[in-house]
């Protein structure tokens, strides 16, 4: 494996010759600036059309807070369910059943290919009555929608780890399985977990088709459906939905980083180039 060979060579190398600091790569800034332009100009165009006053009109409509709270509840439910389902499964497959990885990949790609409008028809066809009468059916279905993204993030994160080494090291130090999971694997999956969480929450806060066909007023459904009197107001509503989603994601990410700092862990920041293994 390339990784092992390189590591060995790195160890063999004599004390490194002092090297000149490489010039700051220009390409990084070019890419970031171009990206910024592409994403921000359309937002600016919409903002200009909507006007600041329209935002007030959106927030004061009846149903705004009810819809937002329903969506937040669904987001919590879906995220917890998705993580509880996917994290142990993915770790388990990586460790014990690596041949099932391909199968898992194939299964988790399916929900993203079936258009939501088709899926909800199928779901409502087979769901029992007691589930159909509650909006939490949506929470259960959203787990399926979030599966492709959560799996991909977790898979990428697990591939980046030397999982077997970590697990063997932990067990040789006497750790039993729960401890290994809690204290060794999960902290090293922080990025992947965060990525998966962010994707899932954003998905729930933005999912429109299935909720509207299930006739429930989640936040995205409300944004489209509230008594819109004019173009600027409906544009303001969509922009507001964007900002609200982004706000809650920032909240999650900030809390997660702060918690790790307070816990005294070596890892303070997301995607830090250096990593300390516990």
């Amino acid at each position, binding site marked *: 494996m390339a990784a092992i060979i*390189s590591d060995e060579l790195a160890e063999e*190398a004599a004390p490194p010759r002092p090297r000149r600091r490489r010039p700051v790569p220009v390409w990084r800034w070019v*890419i970031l600036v171009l990206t910024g332009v592409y994403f921000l*100009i359309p937002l600016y*165009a*919409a903002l200009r059309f909507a006007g600041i006053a329209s935002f007030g009109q959106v927030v004061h409509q009846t149903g705004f807070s009810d819809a937002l709270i329903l969506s937040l509840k669904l987001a919590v439910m879906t995220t917890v369910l998705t993580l509880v389902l996917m994290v142990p*499964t993915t770790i388990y497959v990586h460790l014990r059943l690596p041949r099932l990885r391909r199968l898992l990949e*194939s299964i988790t790609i399916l929900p993203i290919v079936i258009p939501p409008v088709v899926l909800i028809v*199928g779901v409502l066809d087979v769901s029992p009555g007691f589930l159909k009468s509650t909006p939490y059916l949506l929470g259960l279905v959203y787990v399926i929608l979030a599966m492709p*993204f959560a799996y991909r993030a977790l898979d990428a994160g697990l591939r980046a780890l030397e999982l077997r080494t970590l697990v063997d090291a932990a067990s040789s130090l006497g750790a039993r399985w729960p401890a290994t999971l809690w204290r060794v694997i999960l902290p090293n999956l922080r990025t992947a977990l965060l990525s998966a969480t962010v994707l899932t929450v954003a998905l729930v806060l933005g999912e429109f088709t299935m909720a509207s066909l299930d006739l429930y007023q989640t936040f995205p459904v409300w944004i489209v459906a509230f008594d819109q009197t004019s173009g600027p107001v409906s544009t303001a509503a969509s922009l507001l939905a964007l900002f609200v989603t982004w706000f809650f994601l920032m909240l999650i990410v900030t809390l997660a980083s702060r918690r790790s700092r307070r816990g005294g862990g070596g890892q303070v920041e997301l995607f830090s180039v250096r990593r300390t293994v516990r």
Partner: protein
Amino acid sequence: MTAKAAPAAAPGSTSDPGASPRRGLPSVLHRAWTLAGVVPFFVYVLLGLGLPAIAIAVGAFQNPDTGKFTLSNISIATHGIYLHGFIITAELSLITSIVPGILGLLIGYAIFTARRGALLRRVTITASGTFANFGGVPLAFLFIATLGTTGIATRWLTDIGFNPYTDGGFNLYDLGGVALVYLYFQIPLMVLIILPAFEGLRPAWREAAQNMGASTWHYWRYIGGPVLMPSFLGCLLLLFGSAFSAYATAEALTSGTIPLTAIQIGSFLNGNVLAGQQNVGKALGLGMVLIIAVLMVFYALLQRRAARWLQ
């Protein structure tokens, strides 16, 4: 939680740390017990995805009025404008998975390696999550207001002497324009799902490579590339699926003037014109799943080739 408990109690295989040794269990039982760890996942998928999928597949073969078996839905779905729709959708999805795939990779790497970019990273991951799920009518309007015939960017460009429509042959409402708009949610999706993979690139390797005189190109060709390739391909697959089933944005931009399968499904399952032909929509949905299944085969072959590259 069953899955977590299962590894701890799994019978003795020597590669299973922390397990209590249990000897003499027949290998079939052993294998079954090992599989128990993934049972919750498969049960959930069976109930939440399998049952609805079966309902859809059954519907695809049913006559909507009589409920009897028929192949007419499938026949409609695989000919004429619907076949054309599959082809165009595949084209669009290919473009809007490869291009954002590469761009997303570059952007992700730029973010990942920024030295003092703590806030930048936080903003990027949250913005990516937000934009990855942004679409439909609002997104279409964003671009109409920017690059439509009277859009703000169109006007700026015309002022400096270059009208994208008349001079550049650009049209927001054709396939190229739609692809440009798709990038708005495909790039953030790519960034978000490729980011965890970068942690697999140990900085020690880069330093070692430099010390041995390897150029940047060599580093990527022999170390970085092979390490990232499996995850990269997986992300491309996801992007393809996402573009394939995207519907509301293209619908708002083109009003069906470009045949896209997801839009056609919408006309059957969710429309005001074609009454009683829902099952053709389900047949089209089935077609989408089959196309992805075919793609998965190519994907598996690609992964195998990439793994060989790793050696």
